[in-house]
């Protein structure tokens, strides 16, 4: 059953349809929230808030648009609000004092680092730490792209930026991680 079918069933009075819908998206939404905020307790709180917002706004949901994009947008906004409140918006360690990132002009293919195939053990934790240091939009793009959940276009709708900007964020994220590993 598609997301829209479940939503229609729920709005017609089938309570189990909502439970199925939440069950379908719980893991990806929790994972996304976890990647943005960095700990399980906060990711739980954010996930609860997201699904509560989804439930409250189901009647207003525009079914001509993708439900997946909609729920990930809500998650992104909720997590960003949370990070703002905690004043944990992290800026890139690779920008100079003028806010420029010299790596952004470097050519790079839109493929994830081949080096990642070789990392193991504690290097995985180092990579996770490096990802945490990326700006939230870079992390958002990287995670959503690499888990295979969404296209660049869909990610652009979520972060409300043009597709070229999304690709640029992705490129910069990869370059940042590559530089981190080359240290």
């Amino acid at each position, binding site marked *: 059953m598609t997301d829209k079918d479940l939503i229609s069933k729920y709005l017609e009075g089938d309570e189990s349809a909502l*439970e199925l819908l939440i069950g379908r998206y719980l893991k990806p939404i929790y994972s996304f929230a976890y990647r943005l905020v960095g700990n399980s307790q906060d*990711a739980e709180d954010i996930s609860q808030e997201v*699904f509560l917002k989804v439930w409250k706004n189901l009647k207003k949901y525009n079914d001509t648009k993708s439900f997946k994009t909609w729920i990930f947008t809500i998650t992104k906004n909720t997590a960003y609000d949370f990070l703002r409140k905690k004043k944990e918006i992290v800026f890139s360690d690779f920008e100079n004092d003028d806010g420029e990132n010299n790596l952004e002009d470097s050519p790079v293919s839109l493929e994830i680092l081949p080096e990642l195939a070789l990392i193991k053990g504690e290097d995985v934790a180092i990579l996770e730490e490096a990802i945490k240091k990326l700006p939230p939009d870079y992390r958002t793009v990287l995670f959503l792209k690499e888990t295979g959940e969404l296209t660049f276009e869909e990610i652009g709708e979520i972060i409300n930026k043009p597709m070229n900007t999304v690709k640029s964020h992705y490129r910069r994220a990869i370059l940042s991680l590559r530089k981190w590993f080359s240290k």
Partner: protein
Amino acid sequence: MDQKHIVFKHIDPPKELLGGILLKIDNQKKKSARIKLFFSSLGVASSLGVFALAFNYAMEVFYQSGAYTYMSILLSDPSFAVSYSSEMALSIAESLPILELAILLFATFAFLESIKYVIENISNLSLKKRLAV
């Protein structure tokens, strides 16, 4: 296993998270239903008052109208009514207090709708809590 994907894999949420979310939604529904029940009860009370007023007024106007007189004749002397049925029907239709009856109908409808709304909210409040297993 491709090490690349370890960093980007989905993370399993705590087992009780789904149940917690459903419980939170149920609690929110009940809270919302309580508030709506309060206001809809006020709505029932006020629409009942309006209905009573509209009913009394409609009856008063009806008793004073020619329609009441004609209907009395209809009931007391049916043979007369049959003989002059078309004239009587026209007379009754002309003298009916249409506006007052329309107001009474609207007040009745509003009262029934408010009752229906109260019943819906009561059934929302009596939702059983569901926890995911």
